[in-house]
């Protein structure tokens, strides 16, 4: 209970401050409507404006791009982590492509995949892919030598070695990548929906801005914030379930999310 109170303290205080400032006129309510008004709008009006379709469209793009991007990132990260040759061959390319802002390549992606669904899924894919690839690679490389030696001494077959030694050994780093990538996917998909989309949270925000329906715009922002928190905590939960051996070691206990 105490932990929950701790976690709610900052967001609740921020909202309260905002609410007070709007109500007392410190903030101009035309630009900064009170959060209670926005929530009311979100519940009462937004559904009729099609917010469910927008969230659905964004989620669809995220889920497809994220899941395929993460899978590809984990697989290539494992290969590059285990094989020095592949690493030498591909790492320079990865190091060059990774820092390019993925939104900057959106026009190029749209040129290749058209302005429809595919281009948005592909940018999310690319964004997730690089983050997970780099984290997986790092995780595999930093597995202690002794675990490889134990596997060799007991002649663990290749497949089993990959599944039961390399994958769990790199799993904490992989999860770090997965958590970064889900937040990043949200960022990318919203930005991608600003142009050339007919549905999505980004589309909703941009449309609302253009028609100056600021409450709808804020509703979109609220939804993004909620989705972001839900994804982050969902992955934390999944990590605790899948890596029970990792949770109460070192920093895991303090962060205790």
């Amino acid at each position, binding site marked *: 209970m105490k932990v929950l109170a701790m976690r709610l303290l900052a967001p609740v205080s921020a909202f309260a401050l905002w609410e007070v400032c709007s109500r007392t006129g410190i903030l101009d309510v035309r630009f900064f409507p009170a959060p209670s008004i926005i929530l009311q709008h979100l519940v009462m009006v937004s559904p009729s404006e099609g917010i469910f379709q927008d969230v659905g469209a964004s989620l669809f793009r995220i889920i497809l791009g994220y899941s395929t991007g993460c899978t590809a990132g984990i697989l290539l990260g494992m290969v590059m982590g285990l094989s020095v040759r592949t690493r030498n061959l591909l790492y320079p390319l990865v190091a060059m492509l990774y820092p390019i802002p993925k939104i900057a390549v959106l026009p190029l992606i749209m040129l290749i995949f058209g302005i429809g669904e595919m281009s948005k899924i592909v940018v999310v894919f690319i964004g997730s892919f690089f983050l997970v690839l780099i984290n997986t690679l790092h995780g595999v490389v930093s597995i202690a030598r002794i675990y490889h*030696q*134990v596997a060799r*001494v007991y*002649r*663990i077959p290749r497949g*089993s070695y990959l599944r039961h030694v390399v994958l769990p050994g790199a*799993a904490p780093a992989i999860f770090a990548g997965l958590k970064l990538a889900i937040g990043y996917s949200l960022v990318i998909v919203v930005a991608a929906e600003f142009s050339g989309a007919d549905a999505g949270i980004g589309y909703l925000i941009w449309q609302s801005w253009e028609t100056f329906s600021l409450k709808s715009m804020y509703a979109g922002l609220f939804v993004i914030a909620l989705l972001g928190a839900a994804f982050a905590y969902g992955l934390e939960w999944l990590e605790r379930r899948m890596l029970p*051996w990792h949770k*109460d070691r070192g920093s895991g206990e303090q962060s205790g999310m």
Partner: protein
Amino acid sequence: MTTKKPLIAAQGLVKTYPFSGGEVVAIQNLDFQVARGEFFCVLGPSGCGKSTLLSLVSGLDSPTAGSLHIDDHPTQAPPVDIGMVFQEHALFPWMTLERNLSFVLEHHPRFINSNPLELARTWLHKVGLEKFNQAFPHQVSGGMRQRAAIARSFAVEPSLLLMDEPFVYLDYQTRMQCQQLLLDLWQEVRCTIMFVTHDIEEAMLLADRVMIMSSRPGSRKEMISNALSRPRKLLDLKTSPDFLNLVSRGVNALRHELQTEATS
């Protein structure tokens, strides 16, 4: 046992490593043999190349010159099963204790028809860890982890067991308990053990024969046969004149190394 061919035979063994342009000699011209069923200790100060020697015997590394054979085969493809116990942290942290054992068992051709989990539990019981089957390594003490590691190495019923200072990070009492446990387990199965340590007492308590090595480069200094009767009970041994006599022989053999170690 001595009439049969030795299990391990090393002749003119050399191992060098590249080091800042030149090379450092870890092992120089080493000859020794280990008989089947023998408890063989390699004793030497740090830097005598004893861990290197173990990685050569285990096939994890290969010699620069000379020959090293296990049962007449090169160490890279040993015909016998090898078990190994490392200094620490060799249990997979993501597996429970029983899973750590059953994992190596289920991939072992000899246990293809047995139940790995049942065997794992039997061995954990033997080392007094039956209440911790489901515990993860980080949830138990260092001594318990090493007992589990020993159980894992014995569980595969190896013909040759290699141990690299397995008790070095344990406190005095826990170390004694582990040493006694090792002696008791070995008394039962009588596999060949090659045990590396820098602890003179430990070597004399455990071994049938102790090879003393000098440091930098590592080479053979003396071979001491240890005829203390078996089965051994540590508490009785530690105060017996025969044992103390062996320890002083070890100290004398390493007099030079111990002195230089203290001043350097």
